[in-house]
């Protein structure tokens, strides 16, 4: 019995009765319970992801540190030396933005293809597929935390100094975790139906990289383009890290609040979106 229906809406089909009954708060509680129940599976998968990433590489985990350092050297040469962008302690400034940004790149890139990559677990067996999206977020979080720790240790070498503001880092990290998780659920869901996104995601991440003040400062942005920073949650995120690690000043409350509120909203949105379409993933693999 095959019938045809017409599609509407961004993903393509109308709500069925079961889908419209979904309530975001109960689905949040349900997702939390699922993650808790399968915490050991999550742990195993994150460990496996980390192990696989450095398999057959000579430097192994050191790449996590090498990567931002190499880019920092390149950016310092191009922007600080060639283009004479004047920012004091430029390497520290760049690293304070690059290290958190690398978490975004690593997690979002892998989350985009998480569902097709995990096709053997989707729709075929009893498997909590939300974990497939959480695994790249968390394995990149492990890398991020380790490189952040190393960066903190090197702050005095790079011209900064230890400050009580470092104690505010957990706030920034939590905000970033929420935002990355939410974005990851959105891109993972969208890309399952429209694989165009996996071609585009590299460009989009580069765009956000240039639009966030990672190798320039807010003061260098012309007034009429300042809104690109003001309304960009990732710019706010980078500025929070800059305040804490580079300026050794407490971050503007507005920026931190923006990051946290954005994180919570995008997480709710992402999980709701994922939840609404998850039953149809198997049909598109």
């Amino acid at each position, binding site marked *: *019995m*095959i*019938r*045809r*229906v*017409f*599609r*509407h809406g961004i993903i*393509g*089909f109308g709500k*069925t*009765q*079961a889908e419209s009954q979904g309530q975001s708060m109960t689905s949040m509680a349900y997702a939390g319970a699922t993650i808790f*129940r*399968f915490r*050991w*599976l999550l*742990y*195993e*998968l994150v460990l*496996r992801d980390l192990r696989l990433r450095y398999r057959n590489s000579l430097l192994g985990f050191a790449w996590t540190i090498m990567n931002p350092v190499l880019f920092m050297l390149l950016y310092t040469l191009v922007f600080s030396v060639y283009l004479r962008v004047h920012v004091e302690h430029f390497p520290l400034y760049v690293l304070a933005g690059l290290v958190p940004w690398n978490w975004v790149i690593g997690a979002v890139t892998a989350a985009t293809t998480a569902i097709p990559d995990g096709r*053997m*677990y989707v*729709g*075929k*067996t*009893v*498997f*909590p597929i939300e974990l497939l999206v959480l695994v790249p977020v968390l394995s990149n979080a492990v890398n991020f935390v380790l490189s952040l720790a190393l960066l903190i240790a090197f702050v005095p070498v790079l011209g900064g100094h230890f400050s009580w503001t470092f104690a505010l880092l957990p706030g920034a990290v939590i905000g970033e975790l929420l935002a990355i998780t939410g974005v990851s659920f959105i891109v993972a869901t969208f890309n399952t139906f429209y694989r165009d996104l996996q071609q585009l995601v590299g460009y989009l991440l580069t765009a956000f990289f240039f639009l966030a003040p990672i190798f320039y400062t807010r003061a260098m942005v012309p007034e009429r383009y300042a809104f690109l920073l003001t309304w960009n949650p990732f710019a706010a995120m980078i500025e929070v890290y800059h305040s804490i690690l580079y300026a050794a000043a407490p971050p503007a409350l507005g920026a931190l609040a923006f990051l946290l509120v954005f994180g919570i909203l995008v997480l709710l949105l992402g999980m709701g979106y994922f939840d609404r379409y998850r*039953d*149809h993933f*198997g*049909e*598109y693999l």
Partner: protein
Amino acid sequence: MTPALLAAGVSKTYRIPDIPKRATIKDVVVRHLRREDGVAVVDALCDVSFSVGPGQSLGVVGRNGSGKTTLIRVLAGVCRPDSGEVRVSGTRSALLALGVGFHPDLTGRENARVGLLSLGLSRRQTGDRMDEVIAFSELGDFIDAPIHTYSTGMYMRLAFSVAVAVEPDVLLLDEVLAVGDPAFANKCLALMDHFRSNGTTMAIATQDFHVVRERCDLALWLQEGKVAAFGAPPQVLAAYGDFLQMQEGENAS
């Protein structure tokens, strides 16, 4: 007595993306703007209701494409029904025939670990059960070879061993006895008898009349996603058998 397995008005449709072959981007855009691009919808299950008491076994029969696999998947919680409700009391474990959740590049052991963890076991419990799983699967040294080197029979043996490692309250099986050699099939049947005597509730989708007649307390015959008959195995099988014979006669003439 509350049923261990309950389906109330369960319906499930599948959607198949309906993009015409060799469509140009213009075609797709124009169709999308006119909202004429659609999805093909298959009604896999249509208002299916039944209940199975604790410790009872249900045999699900029907022709290919009648909805057996979809029913087992819905009962297993792999997918949610579009409407209606499924209730399963206690822990459930499932073995689904088409593509069990194994990663082809990981070894049998690594896959079994993930499989056990995805049943909700802790790391410690998983470690404790691994030896049992490996022994039951009879894979020997192949347990440390990547899954893509396995034959279908070896694959299913490992999958079955993982699925039964947890002593679930409810066990859902889809056409699992059709693969594997007779010796392993007998071992599975013996294990099913063990589960039955332990009070495990089971639902089995199968083409095997013997299994339904001898090992099931209830039978369900699905026809185009609808319940054609539900009740004691002899009556349901008789009706289904008559139907098959009638169809064969029609095809012959």
